[in-house]
């Protein structure tokens, strides 16, 4: 049975992530946001501690833990900086199809060397014409002997310019729609791979987001995950599994905004009283807390299902949708509690609000999540 409570090890893990976030991420978050530069040394530090590659089996150099544990870490790191954490979760996203479908040989050849060094991976799915509509991927994979020749452009790729390894969704024939998709693992230094300019984003500005371009890139057939035509199912299963982490990141951002609002409301005085003495503020804080707590439980449920090999499309879509929409609402309310001070960059809440917006868009928009949920409700 699903149990949302934490064991001693879970608490120790959460404490480690919180400690790491407070010492390593919080001090640089505002600056990384301002200059839009990825703080690479964080990857090295997180790798040394084991805060990345958590869900990769131990024998291949990962943490050997579940999504439940990964979500505990996600909340803590995102509470410090969602932009930094997005690069971690994007890497987990790229590694997840390997966890699901890679052969022992592929794990040995691709995963093991990847995990041995501080490195990030990147999931190349979105294209100029394909986002929510995964089956309309246009990047071509044409079989040529023992390799596929890849041609196409991927857009809005998190870690695009810093990843060591890409997991690329391509099509054997666009006419085949979802039946034509294949997933290929492509090292980023493969001949023919190039990256576009870094996107200037509204929020999560530390994360490196850009186009990745494949021009006659030869990807060995032995780097294909699953069979030809299994790509679509693999992408969907991957997105199902990873949604809980993104939802956990949203809980982290919401929690950080709530904590900031509570603190500030006790310090800020108007009409000779702290604004926390006004019910208009109190109720706002209460509503924020309700959303944080509820979202966290939904996250744990979705992650628990994934860890137990149970299908969680419905639950993870609910968790992701609710947590991301809540984060947007909570951070907007936090800015309101701060008033004018919330709108300037001297305080952290405007960053939370900018960061939260992306949570409603990437890894499946809130609309796509509602589509998944309603299809489950209405099927047969």
């Amino acid at each position, binding site marked *: 049975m699903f149990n949302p409570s934490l064991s001693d*090890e879970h608490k120790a893990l959460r404490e480690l992530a919180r400690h*790491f976030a407070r010492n390593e991420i919080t001090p640089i978050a505002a600056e990384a946001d301002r200059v839009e530069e990825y703080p690479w040394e964080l990857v090295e530090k997180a790798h040394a*501690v084991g805060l990345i590659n958590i869900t990769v089996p131990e024998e291949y150099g990962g943490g050997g833990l579940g999504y439940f544990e990964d979500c505990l870490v996600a909340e803590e790191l995102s509470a410090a900086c969602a932009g930094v954490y997005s690069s971690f979760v994007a890497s987990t996203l790229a590694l997840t199809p390997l966890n699901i479908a890679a052969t022992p040989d592929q794990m040995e050849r691709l995963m093991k060397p990847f995990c041995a060094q501080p490195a990030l991976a990147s999931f190349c799915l979105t294209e100029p014409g394909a986002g929510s509509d995964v089956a309309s991927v246009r990047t071509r994979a044409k079989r040529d002997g023992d390799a596929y020749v890849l041609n196409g452009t991927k857009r809005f790729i998190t870690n695009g310019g810093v990843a060591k390894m890409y997991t690329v969704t391509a099509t054997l024939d666009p006419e085949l729609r979802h039946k034509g998709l294949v997933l290929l693992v492509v090292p980023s230094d493969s001949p023919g791979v190039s990256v576009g300019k870094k996107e200037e984003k509204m929020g999560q500005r530390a994360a490196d987001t850009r186009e990745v371009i494949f021009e006659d890139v030869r990807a060995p057939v032995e780097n294909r995950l699953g069979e030809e035509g299994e790509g679509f199912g693999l992408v969907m299963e991957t997105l199902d599994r990873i949604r809980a982490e993104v939802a956990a990141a949203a809980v982290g951002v919401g929690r950080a905004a709530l904590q900031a609002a509570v603190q500030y409301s006790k310090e800020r005085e108007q009409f000779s009283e702290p604004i926390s003495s006004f019910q208009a503020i109190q109720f706002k804080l209460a509503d924020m807390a309700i959303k944080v707590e509820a979202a966290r439980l939904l996250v744990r449920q979705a992650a628990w299902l994934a860890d137990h090999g149970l299908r969680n499309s419905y639950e993870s879509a609910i968790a992701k949708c609710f947590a991301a929409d809540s984060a947007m609402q909570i951070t907007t309310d936090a800015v309101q509690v701060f008033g004018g001070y919330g709108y300037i960059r001297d305080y952290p809440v405007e960053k939370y609000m900018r960061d939260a917006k992306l949570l409603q868009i990437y890894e499946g928009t809130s609309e796509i999540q509602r589509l998944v949920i309603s299809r489950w409700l209405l099927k047969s």
Partner: protein
Amino acid sequence: MHIVICVKQVPDTETKIRVKDGQLDHSETKYVVNPYDEYAIEEGLRIKERLGEGKITLVSTGPERAKDALKSGLAVGADEAIHLLDEAFEGSDPYATALILSKALQKLDYDMVFCGKQGVDEDHAQVGIILAELLDIPHISVVTKLEISDDLRSVVAHREVEGGHAVVETPLPAVITAQKGLNEPRYASIKGIMAVKKKVIPEWNAAEIGVEGDAVGVESAKITSIEVTLPPDRAGGRVFDEDPAQDAVKVAHLLRDEAKIL
């Protein structure tokens, strides 16, 4: 080389300290490993890594919750931990605490002992030194740099003294108390945290280490805490803006008679 590290669980420095009826109220306190003990653990780990061999054993006396401090130390990389747990130990002052630790250490074959220079809760800064006396071995306190001789039979330590550093050499075994600056403690690792689950932390009680119940605990205390008070709330500043010469005299008087800092 067997390195024994004495660890204390203390209130998190970020915990809000409450006082109730003239004593500390710990009902809502969050506990952590004493930060100075973290330097001690880190130094032990580094010595072991440098030598490529050795064993690190953590020892703590404290209530049941002190086990969490030992687990934290194991998660960082210590090999074993022993919890000195007995109702008779509760309320021990620094002397009794050192006595308990010394009795436990006499059962261990140690080459070196580390303590934090002081606990950040009551700041006695005595246990490590008394422990060395009871074990009849040398100690070097407030150490910021440590080097072991090639034959592993002595250490040279830099210790903080007023206005500078004293460099001291002593044969081993010895007690070293760690000061900030000795090293930069590492994070626990996820692997370490998960490995703790499989480790058993033995509990040694008064009878097992050969301590008479009345030699330790509240009854034996050589120090009694009479009252604990919080620092007074910070008051607003005072402005002197009349005649500068007269103001200076007033301020000097206040600094001497009221603030008592002149």
